[in-house]
């Protein structure tokens, strides 16, 4: 559709009404067809992109089920394949599907000869040797899974301790955040007081402050009062509200009609009761959203646990996994197994609450 088409030319004006109508129909039809082609093209592009996006995760799943040799020899295959071996004269030899005298048979390659020729034998009848070009034969492989990687990996480091610490940090922090941010957001959304808007601006401006500016004195403070190498520095500050979540909750509280507060007030409810019985039940979607964000953030956070937790029995999963990798770098299969276990909870939560999640990202944009 272009500009010239839309403005009727004098020639079109002279056409009989019926002819003009059919032309209009044809034009709509061509726009539809153009739309259909465009949508098909977009779907194709999206599918290609989706394959690229998903490949790393599929590779992780696949690697977690391979053994060391499968990872080394066949890093590209997403199916955990392994070359099939067969015993010939007490040795393990690779099995091929070969064509001898127009007949397809399975034979083992027992020796290489110059110029790409190999000696193939039938495992049942190893005396009879066949000289064949190796390139022209099909090496056989089969799927071999190693689910025991998971159990093996989990016994190599105290992952149960890491998990417990992570859950403590995540859920105690979440409780503190929900408690404090609800109170503060309620204060900022429902009452008039001199200077309250300035305080709110001050709260918002802390979003701009990089956490490195406060981190060093906080580290000093926590080390003076003996909190370093405990979970407290990761949990206690959550009980004092943070700008992102207060902002998000306040925006939501503002949408709840004031008349409901008034009705409760007339019935004799104090402000705390209004918050508890009127505001919070209505704000459930917002509370769930900030709760989920906090979960994802705390579950994945590496920076602060790395700084505050020094001994192994205090580590969270993120720090423990990093150290596990440092010790067992070459055991890709086991590291991928633990990594996969670690990304599963956020993925499950994401799928359970997808709508809330994407809406929340839009409102807060930053955290997570």
């Amino acid at each position, binding site marked *: 559709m*272009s500009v010239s*088409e*839309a403005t009727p030319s004098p020639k079109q004006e002279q056409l009989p009404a019926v002819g003009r109508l059919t032309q209009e129909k044809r034009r709509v039809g061509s726009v539809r067809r153009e739309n259909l082609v465009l*949508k098909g093209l*977009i*779907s194709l*592009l*999206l599918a290609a*992109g989706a394959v690229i*996006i*998903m490949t*790393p995760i599929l*590779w992780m799943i696949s690697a977690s089920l391979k053994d060391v040799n499968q990872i*080394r020899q066949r*890093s*590209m295959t997403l199916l955990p394949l392994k070359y099939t071996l067969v015993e010939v004269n007490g040795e393990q030899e690779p099995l091929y599907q070969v064509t001898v005298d127009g007949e397809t048979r399975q034979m083992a390659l027992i020796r290489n000869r110059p110029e790409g020729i190999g000696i193939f034998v039938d495992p049942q009848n190893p005396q009879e040797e066949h000289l064949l070009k190796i390139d022209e034969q099909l090496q056989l492989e089969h799927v071999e899974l190693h689910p025991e990687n998971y159990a093996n990996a989990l016994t190599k480091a105290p992952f149960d301790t890491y998990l417990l610490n992570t859950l403590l940090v995540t859920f105690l922090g979440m409780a503190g955040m929900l408690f*404090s941010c609800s109170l*503060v957001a309620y*204060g*900022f959304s429902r009452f*008039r*007081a001199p200077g*309250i808007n300035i*305080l709110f601006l*001050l*709260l918002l401006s802390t979003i*701009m*402050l*990089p956490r*490195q*500016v406060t*981190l*060093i*004195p906080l*580290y*000093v*403070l926590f*080390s003076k009062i003996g909190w370093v190498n405990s979970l407290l520095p990761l949990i206690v500050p959550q*009980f*004092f*509200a943070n700008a992102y979540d*207060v902002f998000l909750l306040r925006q939501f509280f503002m949408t709840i009609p004031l008349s409901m507060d008034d009705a409760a007030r007339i019935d004799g409810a104090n*402000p705390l009761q209004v918050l508890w019985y009127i505001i919070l039940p209505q704000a459930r979607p917002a509370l769930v959203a900030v709760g989920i964000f906090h979960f994802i953030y705390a579950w*994945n956070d*590496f920076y602060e646990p790395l700084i505050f937790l020094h001994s192994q029995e205090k580590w969270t999963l*993120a720090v423990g*996994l*990093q150290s596990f*990798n440092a010790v067992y770098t070459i055991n890709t299969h086991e590291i*991928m197994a633990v*990594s996969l276990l670690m*990304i599963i909870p*956020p*993925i499950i939560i994401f799928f359970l609450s997808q709508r809330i999640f*994407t809406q929340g*990202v*839009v409102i807060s*944009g*930053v955290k*997570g």
Partner: protein
Amino acid sequence: MNRVSSRKLKLAQREAFTAYAFVALWIGGFLVFTLGPMIASLYFSFTDYNIVDPPAWIGVKNYVDLFDDPRFWQSIKVTLYFASLALPLGLLFSFLLAIMLNQGVLGERVWRTIYFLPSIITGVAVGLLWVRLFNPQLGLINAVLREIGIRGPGWLHDPQWAVPALVIISLWGVGQTMIIYLAGLQGIPTDLYDAATVDGASRIQRFIYVTIPMISPVIFYNLVLGLISTFQYFTIVYTLTGNAAGDPARSTLFYNLYLYQNAFRFLDMGYASAMAWVLFVIILALTLLVFRSSAYWVHYEGQLKR
């Protein structure tokens, strides 16, 4: 009359008191966890301080030393280099994705889920995954390149290719930015498009004269956030290189990594505090710069025409 107004005043006082009581938790937290530490960190930045001994005042020496520190400049260079690649590419890809997902194609929800998924699983696990995908000999990426006849670079082992590798990882996580764009696109009133169509605007014209101006505040928002987060980039680099040294050959010595090194490896808290304040100033300056320049290219609905 007098009694009524004094009662009103009393009520207003009570309301104000209630408000302060509710926000008290945050005020307390702000004083203890933000304002106090900010003042302390500013003070530390003028001292030589290793936590064990009391801080010793050395004036602006830390800042002067920073200025002469080649590693400091290297960390700024690395950060800006990464930002100059990752931000424009990330903004472009997420914008294109959002536009494609806003056309009503089949299975939109599924696509959206897939593209958003990587931003849920940021962190150590992702770093450990990518370090393997980028392995020059065994990694999937070079294996694919080999398949199409290209000899892949050494990626994280090659100072030239380490930052581009990190950019690729960051592009994998554009889903979050995409969602923000998508919300912006869906917020554009359809009557604007209808009006443009009636005026005979083509698809491309509608995109240039309606979509771009209407979405520019979102582009701006994403740009500011992207700038701030780049200067705090840490976890992925730390996991990929296994330490805070910025290997190979300091080619991935990001600003925040060098700050961490000074603070928690060398326990040079004064120097690290100076770095933190320089970081704060950089972020403020960049944000102001983006804000100032935004007048030329950001269109806000409801803004008066000049």
